[in-house]
């Protein structure tokens, strides 16, 4: 469950970073139009990555945790970049699911 929570956090981080990327205005959600919201979203993304790293540290030592988080971020980032322009609804649904999954996993005791 801890692993799943880490993956969900990394996916959410990618979603936040992608949503606030200036190049893809056409795919940007309405809330990501102000500087404040963009900055807040990016801080939240960093917090997600840091949380995922801290969580994985409870499973494995630092270097291994770093490699896993790096890999997870690369995979979720690539999926976003490739799938979002083709199937934006699919990616939005997955993000919504992710938002539901994180509190559910937390309540189920995913944090050791």
């Amino acid at each position, binding site marked *: 469950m801890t692993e799943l929570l*880490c993956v969900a956090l990394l996916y959410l981080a990618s979603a936040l970073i992608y949503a606030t990327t200036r190049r893809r205005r056409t795919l940007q959600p309405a809330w990501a139009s102000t500087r404040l919201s963009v900055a807040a979203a990016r801080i939240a993304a960093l917090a997600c990555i840091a949380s995922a790293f801290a969580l994985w540290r409870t499973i494995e030592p630092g270097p291994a945790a770093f490699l*896993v988080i790096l890999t*997870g971020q690369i*995979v979720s980032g*690539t999926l976003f970049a*490739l799938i979002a*322009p083709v199937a934006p609804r699919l990616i939005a649904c997955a993000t919504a699911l992710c938002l539901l999954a994180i509190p559910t996993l937390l309540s189920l005791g995913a944090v050791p």
Partner: protein
Amino acid sequence: MMIDRAESDRAKRSTSWKMSPRVVSRYWGTHAWAGIVTSLVIYVMFLLGSFVLFYQPLTVWEEPLKQEPARDVASWQRLADLGEPLPEQDIWIYAPQHERGLPKLGYFLPGTTAWRMWWLDDAAERVIPQREMAAAYVYDLHYLWHDVTGYWLQYGAGVMVFGFLLAIVTGVLIHLRKLVPQLHQFRIDRSRRVFWSDIHKVTGVFGLPQQLIYATTGALMALSPLLFKLSIQPVFGGDELRAVHTAGALVEEPPERDHGARVTPLTLDQLHARALAAEPRLEPEKLVLRGYKKHEGTVDFLGHVRGIAFGDGLVRVRARDGAILHVETPDRETAVGAVARWMHGLHTVEYGGLTARIMIFFLGMFGCITILSGNWVWLERRKARAASLGNTLLERLTAGVGGGAIVALGSLFLASRFIPLDWPSRPKQEELGLALVFFGCVAYALAGRSAVRTWWQLLATGSLIFAALPFAATRFSSRGLLGVGPRDEIVVGVELGFLLFAGALAAAAAVVRSARRQAVPATTPDSLVRESSAVSP
């Protein structure tokens, strides 16, 4: 010519702050040619490497013996005795892995590079020749090892990977200034060339850290036996033993040496006890007997060292008297040994468990996309020129090898479920099937009129084959998704993986087919020039 000028102008604009146009132009040429020359071989290595991530689960899926719980190894000597008569060369004995299956014994057939293994059923006192080799073939072919070709093809693979590294480095240098925007620039509403170029850059830039890690560690691992041999005289003054000690895990098989006259050695169990006394944290998983019954014979005890990251260790004892000759653990190793351990640990993903392996499988697939899309960018850029035999050949080979490797891989697993388990030539038949299907697909692509059509047909065929695997698997095991017996989580997991992969292939086939039907406007010289200003270099 217009394309080259546009490319060159763009390159000048992007990197003139650092490099002369001549240098930039050379980088472009090097990137393109290094990519084209190495792409198809590297693609096969990436594809098979992605599956090798699940080597252990695949061996459980393919061999019903490994679906049974393991018994503890009560006596290593008893296992060796079961394998008698043993030849005089190096012998490997493996404990059951992941608490499953039986112990194994293996060696190269005398005077050959042909590797053979046997299961050792000590309870029933029988030896069963290894009868299932599908996962082993995938593992070996990942670095182009084959009994027939021996090391030279493996060394060729290592050199090819250096070519791939050259393509990565030159690609980074060309795009250095605009590396970050490439992370999210995927424009599906432009021409085919922009489409492939964007896919190539997104997957290439995102996958850069992993591709660098895997290419570097892979090249060094493939070439390490050669580098070791070449270094013995100039670096170690011909002292082979010192060279072996320094290299550590970098060298799995040191060169043959004369172990002297025959003697009566200590039993393996006595030697095991000596090894554990020397390093109590070692959990032996594998024994290597080198000249065991000879005066200078040794036994290596290899396994995980408790409590250390990538912590594989080795204790070498002399067979005749149990003297400890060498202890190698992460906290005792040489600098070269530490590099080798990290290299091996990174390349074989000894971290992160199943989650990391699944994520790296995705990265492997993205790597395949980067490589093949690079070929497509090359082809789209040159389509506007007069047709050339070389480009036609490359287009068809890309489709044939790209789709054919997937179909051949699926066929190998499918054949392994249909050839009777007790048929002595079964491993050869599997191998023959793999080769025939692969080269058949390549021939089909070369003979076909449309590479795009070949692509979706091969992807769809691959999808059907992978989807059929859980059904075919019921012939030998009742523990899978569709089996009637108690479920085995590894077997079920592998079959779910096959089905998901089949779904992804079907989706890819559908996308390629619909893209072909929608008749994306062909790229013309004029459109290329127009787009060249829109495409970031």
